[in-house]
């Protein structure tokens, strides 16, 4: 089911508008991440999709049906809460069966379907345990199975991985991907971790201050950020930001450019036909597979992942250099222009 927002806003009772003119369409059958810092509006957006919150203005569509005034149950969404919200007094099987029991599905049908779902999320050997006896990852799986039990129109996951330790997080994000692809249900998940979103999502919506910053595939978000916020939020290590004035003697920059962002991997050993910056090496470190060097360029520090020994000049790879104006909007750079 594709989900469409038409000029949706949300204003809290105290008069503060927290979401501004949300206008987007989430394609059917894809895994979509809502990414942004806390307070950016991503959980609020999720709750608007779920129907737990009502839009102040604008319209929400599921497919061709307008659902703006419908509640969560009528919209038929499945939701996995951050703390999983499993019923602690019920066994795993009873938890998964519960939505179907409420929908008065025949007993043998619902038990069979619950077992199939448990198998899908790989908790079929835990059916008679209580949630308290399961690990965080297993509880997460049960919560997903319960949400899938009613054939949801959309599956919503609120910070699904934040309660797990680092290793489990990597495992579970792959699991969410696998389960989403196996069921084909349109899935929306909220996260503040860019690498999580980058690894599993088909499309990522970056939200900040209740405004959509960019809605794109992970790769184009990284390679083609529309504004300074997205460039800064996506990528690890964080993009280097240097005032345009310091770079104008080395690069041809648009007149209104204020800041230039340089991806760490765009700073390389000198090559022909590429802009060159004079630098001094400050520190070069290796962390297992990863390398990181801190270079000094005038008054500014640049972090790079490509330099492995002390150098006095570096080249810039133009695919990783972005110019932004005072408002943080991306400006095109004319690479064929002459140096001033």
């Amino acid at each position, binding site marked *: 089911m594709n989900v469409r927002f038409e000029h949706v806003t949300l204003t809290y009772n105290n008069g503060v508008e927290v979401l501004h003119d949300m206008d987007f369409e989430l394609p059917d059958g894809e895994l979509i991440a809502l990414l942004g810092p806390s307070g950016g509006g991503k959980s609020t957006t999720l709750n608007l999709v779920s129907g737990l919150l009502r839009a102040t203005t604008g319209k929400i569509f599921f497919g061709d049906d307008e659902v703006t005034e419908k509640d969560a*149950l009528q919209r038929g969404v499945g*939701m996995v809460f951050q703390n999983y919200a499993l019923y602690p*007094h019920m066994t795993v099987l009873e938890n998964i069966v519960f939505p179907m029991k409420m929908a008065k599905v025949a007993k043998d049908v619902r038990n069979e379907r619950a077992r199939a779902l448990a198998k899908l999320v790989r908790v079929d050997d835990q059916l008679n345990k209580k949630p308290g006896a399961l690990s965080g990852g297993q509880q997460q799986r049960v919560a997903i199975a319960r949400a899938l039990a009613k054939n949801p129109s959309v599956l919503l996951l609120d910070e699904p991985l934040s309660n797990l330790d680092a290793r489990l997080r990597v495992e579970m994000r792959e699991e969410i991907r696998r389960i989403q692809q196996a069921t084909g249900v349109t899935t929306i998940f909220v996260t503040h971790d860019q690498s999580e979103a980058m690894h599993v999502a088909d499309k990522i919506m970056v939200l900040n201050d209740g405004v959509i910053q960019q809605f794109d595939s992970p790769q184009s978000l990284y390679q083609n950020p529309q504004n300074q916020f997205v460039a800064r939020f996506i990528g690890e290590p964080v993009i280097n930001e240097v005032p345009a004035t310091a770079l104008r003697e080395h690069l041809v920059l648009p007149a209104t450019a204020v800041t230039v962002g340089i991806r760490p991997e765009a700073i390389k050993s000198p090559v022909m036909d590429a802009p060159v910056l004079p630098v001094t090496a400050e520190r070069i470190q290796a962390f297992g597979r990863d390398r990181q060097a801190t270079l000094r360029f005038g008054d500014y520090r640049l972090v790079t992942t490509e330099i492995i020994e002390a150098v006095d000049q570096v080249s810039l790879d133009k695919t990783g250099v972005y110019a932004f104006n005072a408002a943080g909007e991306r400006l095109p750079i004319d690479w064929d222009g002459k140096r001033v």
Partner: protein
Amino acid sequence: MMNNTKPTWRDNLKALGYLLPMLIIVGMFSLYPIIKSLAMSFYTDYNFFTNQVNAIGFDNFKTLWQDANFHLAVWNTIVFVVGVVPVEIILSLAIASLLNQINRLAGLFRTLYFMPFVTSVVAISMVWRWIYNKDAGLLNYLLGFVGVHPIDWLNDPHYAMPALIILAIWKGLGFNILLFLVALNNVDQRLYDAAMLDGANSWQRFWHVTLPMISPMTFLVTVNAVIGSFKVFDEIFALFGGQPGPGHSTLTVVYYLYQMFYEQNKYGLAAASGVVLFLMILVVTLFQLWWSKKHVHY
């Protein structure tokens, strides 16, 4: 001191020294009276003032077995417990659930419901004596509106027990409501959201989420209410002016014990009836414990 060596006799003696003051108090005021009253129930010929025991045996229990008054007391106690506990639990849970829903005035209502708990039983009973009054009472006045003829609550043997039960329920509500409110507040709101999304209506959410989640508190409240109700005495004494109701209609086991001890000076009999009451409470509480294993979710 952190070590894994075995404590020596010296260490044990030292520990005992620290514990001794408390042990003496507990022993003197808790353990000794329990053992003494148990022993006293077997004294068949006993001088209370000289503490001289002339004969022991099972005669006290035999007497109780044959005493019609004691049978009545046991029966009345059971009627009282069965009449009070379920209604009190259901009513206080219902009121607590409602209080949990409202935002305004919840504090005021909570205080109002809690008042009976902090007020003296004697004072409460005075007010209820007026409420139950046949000619000038509030209850008959209100019942008059629905066409019920005046009932002589306190002097009619048929109505004395219901009157006592109503008073006891009302008195117990406040504290139980408070306990239920605590339990209701501790239920994770997300569970209700999840249940709502799972298609449970408000009654189903109450049945499948609230009830299991607060079951430990319900268990505590029930055990407490059962034990308290088995031991009912002061309400009777105050409500019926030092009588066990008209025609012994509210004679309970503890009231019987009181009569034997203070009015008839049959100390052995009083102690024996106390032991019987203890066994009754023990059986019921063990049953509750057994039942809770299956139905209480911690």
